[in-house]
């Protein structure tokens, strides 16, 4: 008997008493009535608590803000689907690398890159969570992981209050990364310290009119 058949057989034996299945009660919150301004305020509050950098800006100001965030960078990587207009004010001295399916940066190249700029799929204000799902404006997972500084664009139209509100807007089979602040650990005396293996600096640009 294969291990699979045996384990499934054991499960059926174990469940011989045919446990009753109750309907799952779903009386938790699934809709919110927050205004756009309240959503922005809530998300900002959470991100600041996680020690992320946050600015709420207008779409027209994206290039200026992206450039100022990359002030100290010597190089930046961006996914092939990103609006390159967002990078137009980045000084010439900062090397730009586009990462695309046919021309992917190697891991050492990513490690030598100071920053990454991506967009995002959806954000949950209540928990301060930004979800990336690998769409062309966010790129494959490695590019938002290896560089030590992540500049992330969050369009206001993609903010919801509650996690259950985000679910219908997600394509779960795409590789996803849910980001709530820069990398952190609570492993020493259960006190939170920001900055371990993931990007140690997270700058979020919340963009109105996008």
């Amino acid at each position: 008997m294969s291990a699979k058949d045996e384990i499934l057989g054991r499960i059926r034996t174990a469940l011989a008493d045919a446990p009753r299945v109750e309907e799952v009660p779903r009386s938790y919150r699934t809709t919110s009535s927050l205004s756009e301004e309240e959503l922005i305020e809530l998300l900002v509050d959470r991100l600041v608590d996680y020690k992320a950098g946050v600015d709420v800006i207008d779409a027209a100001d994206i290039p200026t803000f992206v450039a100022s965030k990359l002030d100290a960078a010597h190089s930046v990587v961006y996914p092939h689907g990103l609006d390159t207009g967002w990078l137009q004010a980045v000084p010439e001295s900062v090397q730009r690398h586009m990462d695309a399916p046919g021309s992917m940066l190697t891991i050492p190249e990513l490690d030598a890159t100071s920053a990454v700029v991506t967009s995002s799929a959806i954000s949950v204000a209540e928990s301060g969570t930004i979800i990336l799902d690998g769409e062309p404006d966010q790129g494959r997972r490695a590019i938002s992981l290896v560089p030590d500084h992540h500049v992330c664009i969050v369009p206001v139209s993609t903010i919801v209050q509650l996690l259950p509100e985000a679910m219908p807007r997600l394509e779960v089979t795409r590789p996803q990364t849910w980001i709530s602040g820069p990398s952190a650990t609570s492993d020493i005396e259960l006190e939170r310290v920001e900055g371990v293996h993931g990007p140690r600096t997270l700058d979020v640009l919340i963009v109105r009119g996008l």
Partner: protein
Amino acid sequence: MSQVFLGMPAPGAGNLFAEEQFPAAAHRELGNTQLRANLRHATHTIRDKRIRVVGELPDWEALRDAGSAIKDASMANLDQRLEEFEKNFTARGGIIHWARDADEANQIVTRLVRDTGSDEVVKVKSMATQEIGLNEHLEAQGIAAFETDLAELIVQLDHDKPSHILVPAIHKNRTEVRDIFLREMPQVDPALTNEPAKLAEAARLHLRKKFLSAKVAISGANFALADTGTLGVVESEGNGRMCLTLPETLITVMGIEKVLPNWQDIEVFMQLLPRSSTGERMNPYTSLWTGVTENDGPQNVHLVLLDNGRTRALSDKFGRTALNCIRCSACMNVCPVYERTGGHAYGSTYPGPIGAILSPLLTGIEAEENNSLPYASSLCGACYDACPVKINIPEILVHLRGEDVDSKRGKKLLPTQMDLLMKGGSWALSSGNHLGLLEKALPLGKLVAGKDKKIKKLPGIAAGWTSSRDLPAPPSKSFRDWWKSEKEGK
């Protein structure tokens, strides 16, 4: 060895057994005052945080109800859920392996690593691989396994054992961690201080090269979603993302009980888990992957589905809800026994209140190493209140105490006073009438007590309790009697 029948739920093996009985281990650990101070500090920090973030959600109880019901439903059709998961995961390029027990899982992983030609792996913290003793097995086979979670790294560098499921090095304070790093990390800055931020940075430097060059990673999983074939890992440091994204081969080892029916169910668990475990609104990073994605992440993706006693636990209809556990660790953080003894006293990979029920359920209560675990509790109920999926741990403890007594009787061992007490306890608590009868005996306690209304010496097994503390004498009337007479008087 117990006899195993084909298709019959079999007991688990691996790191599920205490090396000595809980009372002896607890006694030794209680003598370690540094350990107790560290634990007290850490568990109290996390308790306060948890209460704050849980209190923020007006629908916390509704989420707990949903979480508990989803898990029950998943367990009731576990065979179908697993087959559905397998179908979807496989359709997306993942490969599934089934492992009856620890040994089989270790062999499968070893073979998979060997096939890649690599002799080292990076690891994301995983309870399942701890349970099966994977690191030790790999080492014996000449494969080096590097733990990458900070706390696991501390434990591994110190050649110690984890003592908590979320923060395995909770028994170490910052200065002890600094000393371990200075001693064990080859390139560490000798001026390293005990600031947690500096210690985290030392870990980053120590592991960076490993992450960037690793060919094989081994992970656990927090959940598997049956209807999409998706796996998820919840973490904080980014070591998980490194392992799940950069290597060519990813091998995940997961208990069969982790499967959830619908992918939307994570909307419940991703609200319950982070708030209950680290007391955060959300953990910094969660990764979800469904088989293989071209040009993104590992291109060889394996999953080892592990039984190792889970079907045995499932066959206990009073105990099976222990499998609903999402390993948040809230129960140990609130447990007065855990706070004093620490995790090592429980012996098994699973310490604290959940360990006290899960270990004997996985191995069978007949396993003598574990039959004292159900007594490692005062039945105060704090664990039940804290549990995000509402596992009634005290009730299962009482059930297992009864099983233990029965199993000893089966072996023709004479029940000890403790057995009788515990059997009596479950009898007394099972009905109001029983309890009332017992309370009638209360005035006897008055006789044993001296004039200062303190009982200084109890007979028999209870003498151990009064040898170091006085017990207030019971009141002359039980609360139930008093309540009755109050009501009738009105």
